[in-house]
Every structure is written in structure tokens, then in C-alpha cells.
């Protein structure tokens, strides 16, 4: 961007949003700052922050520094370039002459690779420094002879950089404009530094908030108890009766519907507690004490099972009873509150709502209660309750042998968790490796699908590509076909006697079949590749829509500024996509951690791992991820339900912690205004 343009921005720019300025400022090479007199909003801290005057003295100092930096960087780059060549030569020599000392060669290779990795940022810095120098020279000739043109102060790239470095070394937060000046690596460093520096404060805030919540919770309970007491003391006799016969207050005020429902609920609750609830709850602490016995039945002349206790049922129905009690306490409290409100209404002489009005309001203002009742009941009964139950199982000794019927099981504290974390045991070894592979799998599967899917979408969308619809339809069609069919077929395709191997052998490319599913590493690669095959159509669909939503003027202005296709992709498409699909990436990461189908249908956990072989009654192989392991343990011959529960709980912990971290550093939650 030229200086004139900058001036225009500033002059006409009272209302121009900051992001507009930003967009131009950090793409152009020259860097302009706006003084308040120049027309930019004086309250805009970004603009003011950059407005500082550097004296001629410091300028010359910086020039010296710049020159030194440039020379240093050149020297370092030269050295770094020579090292890998030497390393490769050394490695080649060692491998040819002294194969026994392979580790020397290997370390040479590692050094070379590390060196190359270091070389990249250094080379970038060098390129920057060169540009700075050129820029500096141009500035000196172009602008310094025209001091005070307009009212804008112009700073060289170097001056700004110096300021940023100063800020970084002092650990001061950068302004958004300054942050944009950093290169990718620096941005990453800065962001991660800020993230880790923020962790203590974050936890502090969370704990503080948790404390406040607990306090508020305690207070509200205390208030409730006080209110219950006060209502009993001050209420009418009808209210007092409703303390024992729920719904009496409502009935006496002619709210028949509510009264009957309350009373019915109480009857059901008392009946349940007397008939079975109390029984289950009483045994909940021990999960049963009397074992199964064989009793001789003299009438029928057979031995029959006389089972006294069933731990499984005790645990389940005990839990259900606890849920029920909680629901009852809540309803009872509601009942008391309603009686008080009724008392108040009658005291002011107003009319109470009739049953008919109640029903009407369920279709109107209280419509959400009607809509939510069944789904929420379903969620509580079939998701919340079972999950709480299975978490509790992790703290018991429930497995195939102690199944609660033939042999009782009981609480055993943290024993199962200790087994997983017992360092050096087969189980903990397996857990560690499977967890690592699960995470690798989830990360690679998510991102490979994401980028390749986006790439395919861009290819199809490119101008000049014919029959776009045809390509899309072919890809989309594959989504429709149930995975168990396609994956089982593909799994057989790559089997030892499958089509791929047979064809390759017929062509004479290989002599013996490639064991795609027999070799751990190969199986892992295959699973990832086939997952790409599964995932691309889906991502293609999603990204096509979003790509078309990117405002075209962004690309136009980028083209005018001279950005090439790759730069446009990096600076416009990628940030936009990441911003919009951030939440989706997170959900797809979570669902990949729990991606059972691909792994199980392809390899069933695949080739047996030599280090541990059979764990928990299930052969956990190389491609086993936590979820298939969990399934294997649950359905395997030993059916160690307690370990399955422990693993399930751990999966939950991993997933939730990762989601929390990702949510915190995700751009969508940070810079919402950028693309708003």
C-alpha cells in the first residue's frame, strides 16, 4: 500500500473499521501510523500505540544493529546449509564402510534433519532482514527528504520490529497490529507463551468461580430451608396439610389437575419406596451379602436357584431409587412453593389459575415444558442414568466371574484405576500405547480429511472445470452407502488373497502377498488412508458451501495487492475456514476418538501386538483404539466390565480436557470480530 493510500484511509477513514486498516497495513510493505491529527480515531489505541517518534540518534543505532543482525544471520545460514551436506556424506560413508556403526549414521541423519528444521526459521529471518535493509534504504531516499508530508509519521519496518522485540523481551502483550507483524513461528510461540502464562490465572479464575458457585449453591439451599420453615409457620392450615399430603393446597384452591398430579406422584413414590426402593437402597452400600444357593425342591424333585441378592440389580435399582428420591424432593419443594404462592394470591383476593388455563398455558407460555418432557425423560433414563451407572461400575469388582448373580461383586474403591496406572504392568503398557495411537489417529484422521477434503472442494470449484455436478454426485453417492458394506469390502480388497494382492502378483510386481493387515505399521497407515477415502466426500460437501461464502472482495483486494494464489490461500481462505469450521473440527476430532466403525470393520483392532498380546480377555492389537478396546473388553470372553468402565471414564476425561484446551485457544472464540 502506498503512502497516499494510507493517507486517504486516514483522511476519509474516521468511520473505517480497524480491521480494514489492518488488512491493508499488514499486507503492504510500508508501514504507516496515524497521529490523532491525521484523522484516525484518537481513541483507537492501536493507532496511537504505534505513533512514537524515534530520534535520529536511535535510528542510526538501529541501523548498525540491523547491519550486524543481517551479517550474523547470513553467517549462520551458511553454516547451517553446510552441516546437512556433511552429515549426509558422513552417513553415506558410515553405511558403506562401517555398517556396524549404523547408529553413527543414524545420528548423522537426525542431526541433518534437525538442522534443516532449524534452518527454516533462520532462512526466513534472513529473508526478512534483507527486505528490511532494502526497505530502509528506500525509505531514506523516498521519504526522509520529504519530512512532514501530510501529518502521518512513517516508521521503517525495522523500527516497528525493534519495538515488538522490546515488548516481547519484557513480556508485554502485543497489540493486534504488532501481533500481525510476527511470522508464523513467532505467532505460534507468542500465542503458546500467552496460553501457558495464562494457565495459572485461568485456573485461579475457575476456582474462584467454582467457589462462588458453591457458596451460591449453599446459600440457595439454606434460603430454601428457611423458606420452607417460614411457609409452614405463616401458611394457612391447608398449606400445612400439603406438607404431608402433597397437592392438598392445590386441590383446596380448585386446581384439580395440579393437585391430583402431585398427590399421585406422592402415592407412587411412597408405594415404590415401601415395596422395593427401601430394599434396594438398604443394600446399596454393600451391593448384596447373601450369595446364590442351590435349594432342593422336594415337590418337583429338582435343585433350584434360590438367589437372594443380585449385585447388578442392587446397583441399578439403588441408583434409580436415588434418582427417584431426588425427583421427589424437588417435586415436594415445588408443592410447598405453590402452596405459598396460592396463599399469597388468595390473600390479595385474586383468582387462581384454573386447570383449564393450566392446560392452555402448556401450549403457550409453558410450551417448552410440553416439548421437553419426553426427550428429557429419555435422555435421563437412557443416557444419564446408564452412564452414571457405568461410571460407578468402575469402582466395583464387576466382571464375568463376579457377575452379581452367580458371584456377588462389591465396591472396591480405586483398585481398577490403580491397575491401569500401575507402572510397568501389561495393562498400563497397553493403555499407554493405545492412548497414544488413539490420539495420533484422531489428529491425523481429522486433519488429513479436513485439508484434503478442502483441496478437493477447491479443485471442483475452480473456474474452468467441467461437469462439476458429476464429480460431486459421484463423491456424495459414497456417503449414502452404509459403511459396513463398503468397509468390509475394502477390508477384503486388501486381504492376503484379495484383489489387490492377487492383481499385483499376476502382474509380477510382487512375489508374495503384501500383508496389509498383518503388519502393524502398514495396517495403521492403511487405516488412515482408507479413512481419508471415507471422509473426503463429507468434508468436500461441507467446505464447498463455506468456501463459496467467503466474500469475493477479499480475494479481489488481495489480488490487487499482488498476492499469489498460495498467499491468498494462506492469508484468506485458511483463516476464514478455520474460523468458521473451528467448532466442527473439534466435534470431528471427538468423533474420531470414538470412531469405532472404521477401525473395527477394517482390522477389528488388527494385527496382534507382540508386547502385550491379550489384555483384559481381549486381544488388543496395533490398530486398536480406546473405543474398540472398550468394546472388545465388554464383549470378550472375560467381559471385564469394570475395566471397560474405567477405560470409558478415561476416554471421557481425555476428550473433555482436550476439548477444553482447544476451545480456549481456538480462533473462533478469540477473534470473533475479525470476520463478523
Amino acid at each position, binding site marked *: 500500500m502506498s503512502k497516499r493510500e494510507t493517507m486517504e484511509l486516514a483522511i476519509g477513514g474516521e468511520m473505517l473499521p480497524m480491521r480494514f486498516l489492518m488488512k491493508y497495513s499488514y499486507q503492504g510493505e510500508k508501514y504507516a501510523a496515524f497521529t490523532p491529527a491525521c484523522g484516525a480515531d484518537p481513541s483507537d489505541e492501536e493507532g496511537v500505540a504505534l505513533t512514537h517518534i524515534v530520534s535520529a540518534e536511535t535510528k542510526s543505532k538501529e541501523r548498525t544493529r540491523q547491519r550486524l543482525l543481517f551479517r550474523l544471520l547470513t553467517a549462520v545460514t551458511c553454516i547451517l546449509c553446510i552441516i546437512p551436506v556433511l552429515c549426509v556424506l558422513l552417513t553415506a560413508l558410515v553405511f558403506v564402510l562401517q555398517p556396524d556403526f549404523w547408529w553413527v549414521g543414524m545420528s548423522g541423519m537426525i542431526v541433518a534433519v534437525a538442522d534443516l528444521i532449524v534452518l527454516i526459521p533462520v532462512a526466513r529471518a534472513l529473508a526478512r532482514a534483507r527486505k528490511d535493509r532494502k526497505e530502509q534504504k528506500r525509505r531514506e531516499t523516498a521519504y526522509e527528504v520529504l519530512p512532514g508530508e501530510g501529518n502521518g509519521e512513517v516508521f521503517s519496518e525495522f523500527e516497528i520490529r525493534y519495538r515488538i522485540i522490546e515488548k516481547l523481551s519484557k513480556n508485554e502483550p502485543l497489540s493486534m497490529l504488532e501481533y500481525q507483524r510476527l511470522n508464523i513461528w513467532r505467532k505460534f510461540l507468542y500465542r503458546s507463551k500467552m496460553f501457558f502464562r495464562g494457565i495459572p490465572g485461568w485456573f485461579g479464575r475457575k476456582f474462584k468461580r467454582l467457589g462462588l458457585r458453591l457458596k451460591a449453591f449453599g446459600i440457595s439451599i439454606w434460603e430454601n430451608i428457611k423458606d420452607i420453615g417460614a411457609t409452614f409457620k405463616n401458611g394457612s392450615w391447608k398449606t400445612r396439610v400439603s406438607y404431608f399430603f402433597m397437592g392438598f393446597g392445590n386441590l383446596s384452591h380448585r386446581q384439580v389437575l395440579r393437585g391430583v398430579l402431585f398427590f399421585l406422584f406422592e402415592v407412587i413414590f411412597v408405594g415404590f419406596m415401601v415395596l422395593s426402593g427401601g430394599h434396594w437402597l438398604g443394600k446399596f452400600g454393600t451391593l448384596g451379602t447373601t450369595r446364590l444357593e442351590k435349594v432342593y425342591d422336594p415337590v418337583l424333585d429338582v435343585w433350584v436357584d434360590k438367589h437372594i441378592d443380585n449385585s447388578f440389580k442392587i446397583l441399578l435399582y439403588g441408583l434409580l431409587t436415588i434418582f427417584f428420591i431426588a425427583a421427589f424432593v424437588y417435586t415436594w419443594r415445588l408443592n410447598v412453593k405453590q402452596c405459598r404462592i396460592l396463599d399469597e394470591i388468595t390473600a390479595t383476593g385474586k383468582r387462581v389459575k384454573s386447570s383449564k388455563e393450566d392446560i392452555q398455558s402448556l*401450549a403457550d407460555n409453558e410450551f417448552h415444558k410440553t416439548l421437553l418432557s419426553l426427550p428429557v425423560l429419555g435422555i435421563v433414563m437412557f443416557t444419564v442414568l446408564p452412564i452414571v451407572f457405568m461410571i460407578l461400575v468402575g469402582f466395583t469388582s464387576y466382571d464375568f466371574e463376579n457377575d452379581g448373580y452367580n458371584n456377588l461383586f462389591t465396591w472396591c474403591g480405586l483398585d481398577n484405576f490403580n491397575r491401569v496406572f500401575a507402572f510397568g504392568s501389561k495393562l498400563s503398557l497397553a493403555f499407554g500405547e493405545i492412548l497414544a495411537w488413539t490420539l495420533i489417529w484422531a489428529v491425523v484422521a481429522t486433519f488429513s480429511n479436513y485439508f484434503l477434503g478442502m483441496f478437493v472442494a477447491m479443485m471442483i470449484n475452480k473456474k474452468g472445470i467441467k461437469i462439476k455436478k458429476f464429480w460431486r454426485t459421484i463423491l456424495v453417492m459414497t456417503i449414502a452407502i*452404509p459403511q459396513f458394506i463398503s468397509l468390509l469390502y475394502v477390508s477384503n480388497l486388501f486381504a492376503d488373497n484379495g484383489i489387490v494382492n492377487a492383481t499385483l502378483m499376476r502382474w509380477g510386481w510382487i512375489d508374495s502377498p503384501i500383508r496389509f493387515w498383518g503388519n502393524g505399521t502398514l495396517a495403521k497407515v492403511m487405516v488412515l488412508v482408507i479413512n481419508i477415502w471415507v471422509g473426503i466426500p463429507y468434508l468436500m460437501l461441507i467446505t464447498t458451501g463455506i468456501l463459496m461464502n467467503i466474500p469475493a472482495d477479499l480475494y479481489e483486494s488481495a489480488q490487487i495487492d499482488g498476492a499469489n494464489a498460495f498467499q491468498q490461500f494462506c492469508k484468506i481462505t485458511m483463516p476464514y475456514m478455520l474460523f468458521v469450521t473451528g467448532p466442527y473440527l473439534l466435534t470431528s476430532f471427538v468423533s474420531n476418538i470414538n470412531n469405532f466403525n472404521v477401525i473395527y470393520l477394517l482390522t477389528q483392532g488388527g494385527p496382534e501386538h507382540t508386547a502385550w498380546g491379550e489384555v483384559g480377555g481381549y486381544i488388543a492389537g496395533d490398530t486398536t483404539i480406546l473405543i474398540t478396546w472398550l468394546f472388545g473388553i465388554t464383549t470378550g470372553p472375560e467381559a471385564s466390565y469394570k475395566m471397560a468402565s474405567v477405560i470409558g471414564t478415561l476416554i471421557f476425561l481425555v476428550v473433555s480436557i482436550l476439548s477444553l484446551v482447544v476451545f480456549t485457544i481456538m480462533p473462533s472464540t478469540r477473534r470473533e470480530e475479525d470476520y463478523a
Partner: protein
Amino acid sequence: MTDELFEGEVFEFYPASEEKPQEIVEMEAAEDTFEISAMPEVAIADMVPAEEPEENAEEGKKKKHISQRTKNRILNTIIHIVLAVMCVVWILPFIGIVFESFRCESTGVVGYILPKQWGFDNYVRLFKETNFPRWFGNTLMMGVVTAVVQTAFQLAVAYVLSRFRFKGRKFLMNLILVFGMFPGFLTLILLYTWMYDWHLTDANAPYGLIIIYVASSGMGYYIAKGFFDTISKSLDEAARVDGATRMQIFFKLILPLSKPIVIYTILMGFMGPWGDFVMASFMANNAADGYNVAAGLQWLIDTPAKKNMNYTTFCAGGVVVALPITVLFLLLQKYYVAGVTGGAVKG
């Protein structure tokens, strides 16, 4: 297929051939000579001169123009080839399945694609000798019931969470979020025991499965909620002013406006049971009458010996299952795209 989404203007990734960095450098150089006072106060976009470049640059421009166009053409050809290869890779396994299903000379896994002897033997065997019709019926029933009830549940939850502000809303959303992160299989054993008590396993597994699918379906409200959020709330308010109740608003105003998402939810609900393999095989517990198609077909080839006997039959079953779903899917593809895209954007 009529996907409106893709019609009309197409997103363009590569710069058009006319605009070249070369030109822009020139423009910038020219701009520096402008005088500020001479410039009117207009938006930046208008200030970029759109005029033809200088005469002396004409020659170079033409040359570059041609090369750019050739480059673009080569690139397009490459992309066409890549896309064609991709399509083959993506479609080949399905063609393979169809070929396998018509193979008559053997029933196991073989190393070639084209059958040596064509015929309908596998289909005949599929319908005569296996329980496939029963499995298909089971799955169809599950699909229809699940689609209906799940749609009702999901839309209800989504609508409430999008439009109502009530005490406990945040709590409910957090509850669903947290419990959604638990792996679903964890509850398998409990649900089995539970359903066993109600005699809804083994041969009756489809009914138990319906309950399981449907009961928690409110948890997948996200996509529908994202869609409802985009419908302006002023519509609701206008209807309220006119005296409509909330229920009337939901049924008469919001639902007709949400056709894509309703169809998407139905489609997802219907397709779910066809692909579910874990729950179905676990609940049916080796009672072949209770399988759905996924569990049943997998059961046909779950040991090497059975695979040798039934592999082609399995492929025939796959074709029979995939065909109606694919047709349905292609017909409703527009709605699927709308749902998926909306869901991804809203998270």
C-alpha cells in the same frame, strides 16, 4: 439432482489471467505520483485505477497473457485428470461389490474383479436361504419409526433451546454436552440387561433398539438448533402480536419454514439403523431373527469358513441394502447438504 447451493456463481480460487503482479507494481509506481489534494474522497476500492496499462508494457503483457492462459489450461487438464482418477478410486469398490454379487463360479474371496460366470444365484440364495427378508423388514421398521420419533424429539429440543429462555436451559445444554462426550458403548451392557428384563432383546431386539435409538435422540439437537437460530425472531414476535400461541407458532410458522432441516433430520433418522452394527448385533445376541441388515450381513461372513461360503451373498445383500438408500439419498441430497453445511458452521 438440483442443488441450488452449487448453482450460480462459483468460488474462484486462482486469480484471473488478466491481473498480474507485474501490472500492480506499475500501478503502485504510478500512484505515488498522484497528488493528495487532487483525490476525491471515495472508497479505496474505487480508487484503484482500472484503466489499461501503459503502451510500452503492451508487448510484454501479451506474451505473459498467453503463457498465463496456457498455464491455466494445463492446470485445468491436470485437475480433470486428478478428478477422474479420484472418481474411479471412489466408485471402484462399489462397482466391485456389484460384480461380486453377480459372481456364480465361487462364493469366497477371489483375486479378480470380473466374474467368470454371471448370474443371480447369490440373490436367490440371499432371499431363499438366509434370513435376509426378515432383517430387511426389521431394519425398515426401525428406520421408519426412528425417523418419525427422532425427528419429533430433535426438533422439539432444538426449538425450545433456540427460542425459549427458561431456568435450567444452560444446565440442560451443558448436561447434553458433557454426557455426549462419553463413549456410547459404555452403556451397552446395562441397556442389554435392561432390555432383557423387558423381553426386548434377541428376537425382539428391533423393538428394544428403537427405544434405545429414540430415547437419547434429543441429544443431537445441534444442527436443527443452528437452523432455527437463523430464522428471525421478529417473525415470532409478529405472530405473538397477532395472537398466536407458542404452539401455533411452532407448528404453523417455524416448521413450514424449516423444511430442509426437517427432511435432513428424517433422512438421518432413517439411515441410522441401516448402518448401525454394534448395538444391533449386541442386542440381538446371536438370535438371527433379531438382526438388522448390518448385523445380519456381517454375521454371514464373521468367520473365515463362513466368509468362504457366503462372501458373494454378503455382497448381494450389500447391493440390495445400498440401492434404495442411495436413491433416496441422491433425491434428498439438497437437504442433506443444507443440514450438513449449517451444522458445520454453527458447530
